């Protein structure tokens, strides 16, 4: 069974080399152009996401949709250091917490609103993301992951024991956002649209980062750090920047979360939540365009829509995660995409009657 897993990994690497490290592309000289399929799927996703309020989802489902989008923003941030640079951190709930509490405290003490607080939330979270990420320069993957989990828990404990300043275990409340872009933010549907727009923006941002020179640099660090250094890549600096970028996403998500639900408390930002973030991003696939969104959807939204018992669904997530790690590298989207490519190849073969598709040219 180990052989099977290994063979899958190798088979996938050639076909997936281009497909996985960045979204599906038509191979052309001198640049990356999204393939037609990608554009179509993206358009469908954008429309579906934005059209949700008009499908009469009901208050409960809508609020889960808001949470899903907020989570997806954090996950798209995670895709930068994790998906591209290959470093896993279990501290993201804490970073979101920094963003949320910054927004809440600024609102309470300085009267700032959501938009004014946003740059500060992003900045604080980015700074702590860099701080959380510093140990990764010295210690290896699993040790580092444990360190970040511990740091996240430390934050939670500090929040609980922070007395009046942090609101202790009860947490803090926030005032209403008022109007934004002419829409009344008290209506959940409008809050959802705002959050969904940010989510789509973060999807775009991650896509641009992944396909930029910076994304390539991060991938080189993941693939072979020593080689990257020998050609002049400052690996330490780039890793830290990757963390800080992911912090920006988490901070903004925290700010949005605080104002969407108007109440935050420490248990939203503990190590267990971070673990669920990691689970989601691995399930969906950290290196694909729709992976993070899919992961957030499956874990946060789907059980509500399908009315699955929350306990059962958690058992399913755990099993799915194990399955993904052991058998389906790259996450669900990557597997779906591979399946789709295979189907395309099969259809092409059937039409032309030629043998092996070019996609599977690698030796096992």
């Amino acid at each position, binding site marked *: 069974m180990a052989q099977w897993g290994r063979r899958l990994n190798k088979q996938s690497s050639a076909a997936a080399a281009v497909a996985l490290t960045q979204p599906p592309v038509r191979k052309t000289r001198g640049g990356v152009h999204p393939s037609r399929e990608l554009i179509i799927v993206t358009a469908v996703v954008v429309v579906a996401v934005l059209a949700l309020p008009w499908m009469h989802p009901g208050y409960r489902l809508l609020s889960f949709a808001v949470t899903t989008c907020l989570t997806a923003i954090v996950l798209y941030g995670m895709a930068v250091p994790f998906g591209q640079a290959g470093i896993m951190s279990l501290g993201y709930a804490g970073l979101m917490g920094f963003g949320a509490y910054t927004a809440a405290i600024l609102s309470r003490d300085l009267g700032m609103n959501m938009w004014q607080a946003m740059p500060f939330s992003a900045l604080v979270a980015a700074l702590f993301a860099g701080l959380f990420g510093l140990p990764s320069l010295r210690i290896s*993957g*699993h040790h580092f992951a444990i360190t970040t989990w511990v740091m996240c828990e430390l934050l939670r404990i500090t929040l609980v024991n922070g007395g009046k300043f942090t609101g202790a275990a009860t947490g803090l409340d926030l005032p209403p956002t008022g109007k934004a872009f002419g829409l009344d933010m008290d209506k959940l549907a409008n809050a959802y649209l705002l959050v969904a727009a940010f989510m789509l923006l973060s999807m775009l941002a991650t896509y641009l980062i992944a396909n930029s020179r910076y994304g390539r640099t991060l991938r080189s660090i993941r693939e072979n750090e020593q080689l990257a250094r020998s050609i002049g890549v400052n690996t330490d600096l780039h890793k830290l920047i990757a963390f800080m970028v992911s912090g920006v996403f988490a901070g903004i998500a925290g700010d949005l979360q605080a104002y969407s639900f108007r109440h935050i408390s420490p248990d939203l930002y503990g190590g267990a939540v971070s673990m669920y973030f990691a689970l989601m991003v691995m399930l969906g696939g950290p290196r694909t365009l729709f992976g993070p969104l899919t992961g957030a959807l499956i874990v946060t939204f789907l059980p509500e829509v399908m009315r699955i018992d929350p306990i059962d669904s958690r058992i399913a997530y755990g099993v799915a995660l194990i399955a993904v790690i052991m058998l389906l590298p790259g996450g669900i989207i990557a597997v779906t995409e591979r399946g789709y490519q295979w189907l395309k190849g099969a259809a092409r073969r059937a039409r032309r009657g030629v043998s092996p598709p070019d996609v599977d040219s690698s030796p096992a």
Partner: protein
Amino acid sequence: METFIQELVNSLSVASVIILMGIGVTLIFGLTGIINFAHGEFLMIGGIGVWVLVSNGMGYIPALLISVAFVAVLGFLLERGLFQFTLPHPNNGFMASMGLSIVLQHIVIRIWNSFQKSIPEPLPGAWQIGEIRFIKMRVIVVLITAVVVAITFLTISRSRYGLALRASLADRQTAALMGIPIGRYITAIFTYGSAIAGLGGALTIALFPITPFVGSEMIMLGFAVSLIAGLGNVAGVVGAGLILGLVQGLSGAYGTPEWTTAYTYGLLIVILIFRPQGLFGGTMGPAIE
């Protein structure tokens, strides 16, 4: 003064459970390189097993033995069915074990519920020596732990067999070429470490009520003591576990329990960053090629 000594003794029992967790983690993580985030769930299952059996009329001792055996079998199956395939990529094992801990926790919640479970004191009462009362069950926990520590120390840390074991695991390629059954050693250590965690759980429920989440609470302490002491260092785990357990127990009695965990975590971070091989020296986990 008497109260203090009493608290000290009580804290020893807390320390014992932490030590049992720590030994499992340090042996498994340090020697085999398998990072099992679900190790805490073995403790939880050990405790829940005892609860199920005792609630259905079984005596405590047979319940303990059966639970520990059950956890051992579970550990064996998981190593064979899951972890052995992640050995070349320990990070995958780590992530898969995160999923595993969620699965195990929620299976237990599904079958029973997430509320506290407890059993009647198996050995009620206390021994009185002078002014100090030694609660009998706590003393038993400490004694059993001491026996386990002794066995572990003698077989793995000190004996020739243990030395060969550790050497083989440190250089698997050579050992494999020499025909040493590394796979079996790894399975054996994993099973042993998991069984000890189960024992810890079975002992814990005799002292306090537990919930299905007790595993997550304990796993970090287990990681903390083993990483602080140095992976693979059983004596170090005992030392670190004693200190940590005493501090936890005493602060529970006298002061602020939440901050104790915070200080432990803080110390863990400092150690991981500045002295990853631990305070008393150990491996950093087998080398990852």
